[in-house]
């Protein structure tokens, strides 16, 4: 498995994988923008995988190898690439994980159905089928899901995995199913009492529900052995079809990304075509350009070739609770993580974002720790309006308060916040009016004023402005005299005052480089003395 993320975030991804998935550090390999790891019990961990917050995307690897020795000539490089992607063994694990993933998604939906289900399941089944006949959509998707679900489910029941899902890859598989096979599929489903009119055009979701019900029939102890046997038979049957077509129910599209010098001599469109049929042959998946179930991503750099299948269509970093992100969600999450809002979970925690913009940081923080009060201020009322919409959509209205205010003149009393989170202007997209020195000094002074004693500030700034911020920090000797400074507070200077020797009573705990697109940025963790 591997996860991708922005440069600089790999360390956090690795840490999160260790914490969330219990993977040992020695089983993790970190490389430019990618984090490789082995998942000991992938079957149980698929859902946790999808909960990773630092990663942009998570992939199941097909192949990864060192590219350097093959780059000398194009022929050599292509031979190696084709050879590796033609080996069907490379796809076994991916197939397993994807299957597990669909199964989990199905289980989630089944729960939903169970919650809303009327008493008699047969009735539900029939209702679903009735709806099926009126709903029109993609037939193949439905069959695919239905079969997958049934086969893997029944597999569980008999406790015999390989019967139902043969991964053997020897014969010529049809890229798309013949209508005869479709009929076959449909009729095998029809065997089950729940399914009758499935040969019409069906919507995938509806049919999934149908499949859910079907599987519940197998599940339920009260239902007699007949229906169970039926379901098993059905599952086997479907399994057989799976076997016939070598798991050809999965559709894919190639997505090739080249970086470095390879890009110059590679015809990506052609490579994509050449690879597609090989992948198809080796994996048993069928190539489809429009709306495929998965993507086979190949990343070729000067150092490595990495091929894998992303577990989700949308990146993990696309959060359900953030509609309009102003900042990359993983970076926001890392900042919140560094702010350690969690540590104070038991008590109240007041968190301020003095330049909240669209509220991304607060939403991300709030999604992690609900037992806190979040405050966002911004001087731009249009940004705040967007933030208000975002907060409402995310359902966090009770936790997040928004105010219009100037970050140089925060209308708050002294020392009321425990944590300040801020995505400060880099003087690029969001320009700083006036002198950046004065701006940052005033702004940091205000943050310091509203922070409580030993409070924490996590600041995102550009790599270029980092030194500036640091120059305002309390010097080492000030920290050693910590106690003498507690009562003192350095007021922000007047407009034209020289900043000379003044400093704010914050000290740098740690700094973390991150790359945001083309921008070099830095997350600074500051504590108040």
């Amino acid at each position, binding site marked *: 498995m591997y996860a991708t993320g922005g440069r600089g975030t790999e360390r956090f991804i690795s840490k999160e994988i260790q914490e969330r998935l219990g993977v040992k550090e020695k089983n993790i390999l970190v490389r430019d923008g990618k984090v490789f790891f082995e998942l000991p019990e992938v079957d149980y961990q698929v859902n946790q995988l999808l909960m990773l917050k630092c990663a942009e995307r998570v992939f199941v690897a097909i192949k990864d190898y060192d590219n350097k020795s093959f780059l000398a000539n194009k022929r050599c490089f292509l031979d190696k690439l084709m050879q590796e992607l033609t080996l069907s063994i490379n796809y076994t694990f991916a197939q397993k994980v994807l299957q597990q993933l669909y199964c989990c998604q199905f289980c989630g939906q089944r729960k939903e159905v169970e919650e809303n289900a009327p008493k008699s399941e047969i009735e539900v089944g029939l209702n679903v089928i009735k709806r099926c006949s009126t709903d029109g959509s993609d037939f193949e998707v439905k069959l695919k899901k239905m079969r997958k679900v049934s086969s893997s489910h029944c597999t569980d029941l008999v406790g015999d995995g390989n019967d139902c899902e043969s991964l053997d890859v020897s014969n010529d598989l049809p890229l798309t199913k013949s209508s005869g096979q479709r009929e076959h599929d449909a009729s095998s489903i029809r065997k089950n009492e729940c399914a009758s009119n499935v040969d019409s055009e069906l919507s995938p979701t509806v049919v999934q529900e149908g499949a859910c019900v079907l599987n519940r029939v197998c599940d339920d102890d009260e239902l007699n052995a007949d229906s169970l046997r039926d379901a098993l038979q059905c599952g086997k049957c479907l399994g057989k079809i799976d076997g016939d077509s070598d798991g050809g129910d999965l559709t894919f599209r190639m997505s090739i990304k080249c970086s470095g010098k390879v890009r110059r001599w590679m015809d990506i469109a052609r490579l994509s075509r050449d690879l597609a049929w090989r992948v198809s042959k080796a994996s048993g998946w069928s190539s489809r350009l429009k709306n495929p179930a998965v993507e086979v991503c190949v990343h070729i750099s000067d150092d490595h070739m990495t091929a894998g299948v992303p577990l989700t269509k949308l990146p993990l970093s696309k959060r359900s609770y953030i509609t309009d992100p102003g900042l990359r969600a993983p970076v926001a999450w890392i900042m919140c993580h560094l702010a350690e809002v969690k540590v104070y979970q038991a008590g109240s925690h007041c968190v301020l974002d003095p330049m909240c913009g669209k509220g991304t940081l607060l939403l991300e923080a709030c999604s992690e720790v609900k*037992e806190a009060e979040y405050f966002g201020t911004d001087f731009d009322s249009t940004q705040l309006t967007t933030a208000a919409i975002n907060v409402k959509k995310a359902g966090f209205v009770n936790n997040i308060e928004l*105010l*219009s205010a*100037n970050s140089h*003149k925060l209308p*708050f*009393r002294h020392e*009321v916040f425990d944590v300040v989170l801020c995505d400060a202007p880099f003087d690029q997209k969001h320009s700083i009016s006036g002198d950046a020195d004065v701006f940052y000094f005033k702004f940091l002074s205000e943050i310091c004023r509203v922070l409580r004693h030993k409070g924490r500030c996590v600041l995102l700034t550009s790599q270029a402005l980092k030194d500036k911020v640091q120059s305002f920090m309390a010097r080492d000797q000030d920290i050693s005299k910590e106690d003498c400074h507690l009562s003192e507070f350095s007021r922000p200077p007047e407009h034209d005052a020289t900043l000379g020797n003044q400093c704010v009573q914050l000290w740098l705990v740690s700094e973390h480089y991150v790359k945001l697109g083309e921008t070099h940025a830095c997350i600074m963790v500051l504590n108040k003395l």
Partner: protein
Amino acid sequence: MKLLTHNMLTSNIIKGVSNGFPLGIVANKVEVKDVDFNQSFVLKTLSKVDWNALRQAATQVGHGDGLPEELGEDLKENDDVLKKIHNAMLQVEVVEGELVCPETGRKFPISNGIPNMLLLEHELQ
């Protein structure tokens, strides 16, 4: 705007204002939200709050009934009072209205639950 937020606000950002706390409230529209009660959260938050200002604000918006004049030591055991405080501090929400600076009378509008604390150039220190 919650009354907890009000409790943290000051108008001493205005030129010449020294304390600016507590701000007066003129409430035109008040809503009471449903927020889960969490005893330890309320107690911890209370330790930061200026109680008199909170009670006064709650009274101004018409939700001050049953709030004690002073917070006693036995607060922890008194869930009824804590729930009332929880209501005043976290559930009562001023949606439309004004905040008023106690020293200059400068008004800060609250619209759609968002107070506008921005100042004009000449009001800045």
